């Protein structure tokens, strides 16, 4: 009998060894995210790749006003911009139209394309107000040194310039292009609903417990908004100002609420930045493509909130 027991024990150990080796984990169950009210899907993108560079050429600034993107021949941008700091909110309306000459690119010394020369043929009107012709100036990094250049002119209009241009939310802005020759082009640009943001900060960044909860007047949950998380440098620029760097662009649904992933704010270097800039951007984008030319229209409601980092 003892031999039999010994045999059984051996058999069991061998069997267990074989079985353990031939095991795979049970298949997981994949769950489908089906409750947008609980957690917004968000997409995070780095905006400023070099946080030490006070001059960036990434297409954004923390006011939310885009330096016109350069992938299109013609760009029209109308924006209603609010900036809140220390509970004081300033509002401006802004409109610009830029016409690129795609045959005249402008590159950094490193060879990176940063823009095109512009042209200003004819005249432009926003809500029947003539836009001014102003220099189209860009900043760029020249071997680590700040450089700027003017690539031509563009049409621009802000509140108070040449009349009372006003960005009407949830409405439309009439755009009219009057060429030097030929018929004028006239169309309405729809404007989004005004975005009113609110930022609730809690915790301390030095403890890595800083929490950043965003609220805004929600729009259509199926639409997206962008939130640009930026920071203000502690060091002064050579001209005595402080730079505001947009760090991340967060794309989420327009549900009115978002808790910024804690790591995004807690990892911001305290020695380099002392203020946060949260910019809420609700926008319409329209892209027309014609024969040999295209048009990109951007209509934005922007609210930037500047806060000290606790």
């Amino acid at each position: 009998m003892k031999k039999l027991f010994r045999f059984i024990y051996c058999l069991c150990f061998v069997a267990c060894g074989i079985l353990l080796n031939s095991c795979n984990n049970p298949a997981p169950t994949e769950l489908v995210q089906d409750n947008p009210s609980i957690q917004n899907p968000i997409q995070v993108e780095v905006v400023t790749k070099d946080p030490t560079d006070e001059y960036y050429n990434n297409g954004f600034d923390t006011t939310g006003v885009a330096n016109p993107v350069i992938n299109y021949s013609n760009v029209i941008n109308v924006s209603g911009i609010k900036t809140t700091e220390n509970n004081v909110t300033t509002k401006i309306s802004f409109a610009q139209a830029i016409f690129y000459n795609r045959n005249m690119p402008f590159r950094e010394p490193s060879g990176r394309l940063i823009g095109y020369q512009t042209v200003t043929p004819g005249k432009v009107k926003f809500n029947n107000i003539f836009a001014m012709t102003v220099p189209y100036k860009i900043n760029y990094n020249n071997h680590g040194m700040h450089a700027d250049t003017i690539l031509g002119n563009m049409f621009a209009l802000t509140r108070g310039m040449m009349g009372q241009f006003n960005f009407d939310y949830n409405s439309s802005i009439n755009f009219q292009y009057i060429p030097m020759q030929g018929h004028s082009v006239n169309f309405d640009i729809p404007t989004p609903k005004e975005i009113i943001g609110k930022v609730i900060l809690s915790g301390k960044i030095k403890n890595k417990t800083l929490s950043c909860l965003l609220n805004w007047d929600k729009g259509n949950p199926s639409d997206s908004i962008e939130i640009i998380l930026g920071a203000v440098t502690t060091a002064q620029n050579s001209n005595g100002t402080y730079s505001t760097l947009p760090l991340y662009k967060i794309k989420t649904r327009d549900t009115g609420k978002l808790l910024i992933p804690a790591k995004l704010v807690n990892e911001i270097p305290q020695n380099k930045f002392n203020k946060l800039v949260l910019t809420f951007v609700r926008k319409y984008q329209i892209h027309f493509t014609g024969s040999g030319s295209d048009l990109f229209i951007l209509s934005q409601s922007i609210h930037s909130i500047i806060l000290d980092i606790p």
Partner: protein
Amino acid sequence: MSIKISAQSSFELTGYWSPDFINFSLMNSFESNPSNYSNLKDWGLTLSYGGEFSSSATSNLYLISLSKKIGNNFVSLRYTPGYQKEFIFNNGQSIVLQDSTSQQLDSKFTYKELFGLGYSYRISNQFSAGFSFRYFTQDFNQEGVLPVFSDTLYLVRQSEDYKANFWRGDIGINYSPSEKISFSLSSINLININENSIDPNISQYNIRRVKNILLGFSANPIDSFNFNLLFETGNNLQIGLNEFLNAFGGNLGIGITAFHDNFQSPYFAGIIPAISYSNNLFGIVLSGVKYFSNRNIPQSFSLFQDQGISNIINNRYSFDKAILTLTFNINAIPEKTVEFQDVEILNEIYPTLTENYLDKPFAIGRVVNLTNHFVQIKPSSKIEGINNGKIESPVVSIPPKDTVKVPFYTIIPQSYDKQKAGISYVDFYLASANQELEDQAQKPILINGINSWDGKVINLRYFIKRDFDFSMDYAKNILSHYKSDLDTMSYALSIFYKTKFLFDNFVKNLVYTANPRAEADYVQFPHETLKLKGGNCDDLSVCFSSLLESVGIQTALVDYKPVNGIGHVNVLVNTQLSPEQAKLITQNDSKYFIRKNESGADEIWIPIETTTLTNFNTAWDLGAQKFNEDALNNLGIAKGSVAIVDIY
């Protein structure tokens, strides 16, 4: 966080079988048996291996367990690597990488039951109580976005792990008023001990642990059929039906279990068909879990977030399974098939009556067969002080569940020579056909001295035979003095005269003496009688018979049964004369008796009254006179008051 309604807790991969019917299928199954009840005999080893049928089939070792019974204590340990459930979902975040591609961030929640231990104590044949503890791990892995500020700012994926391990403990009792019915009462989630502080972010995903009570009922309305019900006070239940057959030297079972879980649909969420075979050494169960709803469909995260899971191996996300369970019942302690109910000592031991115990039991044991089949046992005994080893008695076959009387025989060695009586003890053994000890018992027993006699005249033969060597020397020495007489007389008369010569010499120096006062059944061996020069009728008859037998003269003892408490014994001698030759020794036909020998021929026997210590003729006369009066005239032989006891 818990919710009001609860999910099923008492789910078994092998289905639900009666704990008393098939031991192996429930070994270490804390799900339906939190009280760790078991009727295992010694060691038990269980191994469950199976596969799960999701979109792809996977196999895994579900369970390894080891059990041990120590007296009325039962301990079990189990390792359950296959008791795990994993969920993967997109946590709603994605990052745009430097190459402008987008990468989603996922979360993975893994629930495992790693091991468990159970203890139970058998309070009585009806009651058992115990507890079990099980260790669960919960790993919540969530991918997040981590910005890295260096020369450039970039985003990386970072995994964050949260653990929420815990112990779960439950207690329960089992009650079996009869072999056909059993009840159980157990707790569900009675004790919960969290190993880690629970992060508020993931607390809602913890395994739900709602306290409940588990009630079990099992009945065998007929021998081969078993009905089982498990009901949880959270309104979950399991119903099992099992049928058994005796086949292939074991038990062949087929069963089906249906289960209802509040969190699964339809009402009976699935069934567990199973087929089993078991014998004394091992058991095997092939079972399957078939859910009635389709599990290979996209599952809702919000539902998971709302209801969670309560049971790792049985929940709304579980897949169909096939399980093979092997159990080894390793009985290092042989399982008792028979046991003593009682042992009765029939007689005290008289060491001189050696052969008497070869065909007459000195003890009877009442032995019960505990099994459902015929059992053959080998009884044996060992009397301390007499036997050096076990003395085996004949093999006895006992019908299933029957009780029989088992006789015990013994052998007294010729060398035993203690003259004083004493109390000793005797060990009785019951062994199986393959010599494995089944049961044993011990009883005290009186061992008399070698001169002790049980009062039965027939047993005086042992005193006669024991001294043959001495008697032969003594008789031959006497007869040698009559050599010339014996050589010249007719051969037919030689026995008669040998008897006469021996008796006349035998009685020369003897006197009649009674036994010592305290030893009424004290018999002297021939050499003692001659040495002590006397004895009573027993001693003298034994001595004279021994002298005659030692020289080939056939004798018998005449047993005059006690009248008024006084019995008597004397000797009959076979002269081997034929009735026609009787006149050669006497003309008085009342002085001899005719008995047939083995070949049917008549022979002349003469009675000798050995207590007549004068001479042969007187002893013959008195012997014949008493025999005629008591045995013949008073019809003593016919009535049984007189018996002739042949020495051989």
